[in-house]
């Protein structure tokens, strides 16, 4: 906020409310200047939010383009309920059409390269896009080469990750439907950090819920690459020992090294081999591939480090990275809700930078994640993260952290309401 803005507002207020209608300060940029170009790559929880809010707050001063390869958004949150069969893929799919009415130009194409020197985004099909500021929300891509046997397209379809919601969610559901009663569903969890810490355990509950009703002799085997449950341990272990007793088995320290398609066998660094009927391999993953082209992958060849006040890359000026692709601050989850919150801070910072104004020095992020235990009861985990100027990162506020003591239908209702609300916040 600058003093001249204050002065102008005071002056206008003195002139009466009629003058406020034409107040140019209602946009972040003066309308007279040439429109500044903001390009957003990736229309998920982070990117769609950033695009929508950049257009909303930037008004006539900016032209916002969202590059998204898919025709519609499919939500990862609630996608485990599609595996269970209590929701359909249509229930978690939202189109991009409404964003156009928010002055976001949605381009359905794949960004294949970024040229930070010339500030250009190269598309697979369309013309290059020039940007003044680039917001990169590329989600994740997988390191399939870390697991032997996943080197062919056929193997990757046979052992789907379903860790991006969409066709693989549907194909994994089909495999579960086709499985014999008495079969074993095995889920392999990569070492942390991975996208959405509670989601593998929610998935185990959801598949167990399906088995309990439809295939009661079947088993769910959780093969965790970590030494322990990574989120809401008390809640999940209670569900496995109470609701899903005899169905769910949890094994820690199972780092997957190989899958054998012929025998459906999984091999691990140190644990015993496992044979299963349906195998869900979530391979280790990092920032989406386009981040590599942009040169912003700086942490362990996996994630993108950012200046947390602006989400601008620590390496490449003019490129802001958000969502699951970033090297997170301490205790900051890789979640859809968090990506949505990143998108708003990044959008405000980009507009401030384009207008030559100081950025907000004290952004706050909140996070709420719901995990479903069955088709209607859920539990929440919540946190608030404040920017700390001394540490130059977001710090989780100790008093503001919490989890549900137990699952409840109330949390389930709130979880469905959360989904409807956030989809509206990013795509309406």
């Amino acid at each position: 906020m600058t003093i001249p803005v204050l002065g102008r507002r005071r002056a206008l207020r003195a002139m009466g409310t009629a003058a406020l209608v034409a107040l140019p300060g209602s946009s972040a940029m003066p309308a007279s200047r040439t429109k500044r170009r903001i390009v957003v790559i990736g229309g998920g929880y982070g990117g769609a939010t950033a695009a929508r809010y950049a257009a909303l707050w930037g008004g006539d001063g900016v032209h916002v383009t969202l590059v998204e390869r898919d025709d519609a958004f499919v939500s990862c949150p609630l996608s485990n309920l599609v595996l269970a069969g209590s929701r359909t893929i249509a229930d978690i799919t939202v189109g991009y059409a409404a964003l156009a009415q928010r002055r976001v130009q949605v381009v359905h194409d794949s960004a294949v390269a970024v040229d930070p020197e010339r500030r250009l985004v190269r598309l697979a099909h369309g013309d290059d896009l020039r940007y003044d500021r680039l917001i990169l929300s590329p989600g994740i891509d997988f390191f399939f080469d870390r697991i032997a046997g996943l080197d062919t397209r056929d193997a990757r379809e046979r052992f789907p990750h379903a860790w991006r919601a969409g066709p693989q969610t549907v194909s994994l559901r089909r495999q579960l439907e086709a499985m014999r009663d008495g079969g074993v569903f095995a889920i392999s969890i990569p070492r942390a950090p991975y996208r959405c810490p509670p989601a593998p355990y929610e998935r185990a509950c959801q598949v167990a819920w399906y088995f309990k009703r439809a295939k009661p002799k079947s088993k769910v085997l959780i093969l965790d690459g970590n030494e322990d449950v990574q989120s809401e341990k008390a809640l999940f272990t209670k569900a496995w020992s109470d609701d899903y007793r005899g169905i769910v088995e949890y094994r820690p320290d199972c780092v997957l090294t190989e899958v054998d398609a012929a025998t459906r066998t999984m091999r691990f660094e140190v644990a015993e081999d496992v044979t299963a009927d349906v195998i869900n391999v979530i391979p280790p993953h990092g920032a989406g591939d386009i981040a590599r082209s942009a040169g912003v992958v700086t942490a362990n060849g996996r994630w993108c480090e950012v200046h947390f006040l602006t989400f601008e890359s620590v390496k490449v000026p003019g490129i802001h990275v958000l969502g699951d692709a970033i090297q997170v601050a301490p205790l900051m989850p890789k979640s859809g809700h968090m990506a949505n919150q990143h998108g708003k801070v990044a959008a405000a910072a980009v507009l401030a930078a384009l207008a030559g104004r100081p950025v907000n020095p004290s952004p706050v992020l909140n996070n709420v994640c719901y995990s479903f235990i069955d088709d209607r009861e859920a539990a929440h985990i919540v946190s608030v993260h404040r920017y700390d100027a001394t540490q130059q990162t977001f710090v989780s506020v100790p008093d503001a952290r919490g989890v549900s003591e137990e699952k409840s239908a109330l949390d389930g209702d709130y979880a469905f309401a959360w989904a409807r609300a956030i989809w509206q916040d990013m795509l309406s």
Partner: protein
Amino acid sequence: MRASVGVHNLSGSLYRTIVIVIASSTLGATAPDAQPLDVRALAAGCATCHRPTTSVPAPLAGKSREMLATKLRGYRNGSLHGTVMPQIAKGYTIEELDALAGYFAQARAR
């Protein structure tokens, strides 16, 4: 203890924005879209869940500033119970909660 956070810990920018919010809600003249970007961005943090058009969780737009401020302070000081708001409110300063109450009181209900 976050309870000790006071005006002296507020950044200059946020302090100015709060002054504007308080001033504008007193005068009743400034539409939410004319409010400073810092306050709009702070309020956008709530809009992930609280939408003007959905009933759960409660819409905030157009509600009385006093009621919103009382509730938010109540969640923060532990006198008001809820599912996630008692934790979330503790992550914000009292000044931020009051600024949010001022923002949503001015926002258009649909």
